[in-house]
């Protein structure tokens, strides 16, 4: 069964707007990671947040983690057409150390 579930499944916005994607998971984790996948390509790592961290930033990306709610969010600010991709969260559960479990992803479309 999937540990992480992203919401929404699909998101369409205009260039310049912010995009927010959410990830919920079921069991306690060591860390949570976000990845991007462009159509037909492999996944690219965006950011890792550890269970004792609440927020991390990387360029236009902001990730939050709420372990009490077992949820995370990825915010992309000032989106660009090049941000069009699928975004996945991956959780590293305490009970399955070293084995990341991926959700089904959010497909983001940024219209020029």
């Amino acid at each position, binding site marked *: 069964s999937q540990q992480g579930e992203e919401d929404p499944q699909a998101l369409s916005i205009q260039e310049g707007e912010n995009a927010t994607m959410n990830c919920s998971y079921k069991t306690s984790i060591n860390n949570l990671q976000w990845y991007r996948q462009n159509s037909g390509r492999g*996944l690219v790592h965006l950011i890792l947040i550890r269970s004792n961290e609440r927020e991390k930033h990387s360029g236009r990306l902001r990730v939050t983690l709420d372990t009490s709610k077992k949820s995370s969010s990825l915010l992309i600010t000032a989106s660009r057409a090049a941000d069009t991709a699928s975004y996945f969260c991956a959780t590293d559960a305490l009970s399955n150390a*070293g*084995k*990341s479990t991926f959700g089904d*992803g959010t497909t983001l479309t940024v219209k020029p």
Partner: protein
Amino acid sequence: DAGITQSPRHKVTETGTPVTLRCHQTENHRYMYWYRQDPGHGLRLIHYSYGVKDTDKGEVSDGYSVSRSKTEDFLLTLESATSSQTSVYFCAISESGYTEAFFGQGTRLTVV
């Protein structure tokens, strides 16, 4: 890009034949993973390795076997290919299992 290469990139095979996919890394990372990705879904872990000759099953391991005789190579074998194994297969590497993973470009396998 991380030094990770998958071969072949595309393969069409007949039902019942054995198939081997190869993942080669030049990063000397300890952990290596095989995932499959089906349309509209995230990645599901097939098998992973945490060292030479050390492997473990993932969530969808039935019908697959793996071997790792050298740090740099991780082989995935479909013992007797079935149509349900038509998918895109991704290899990933990770330094410690708790850090970011780097993905290969994927192998598109079609079983007819």
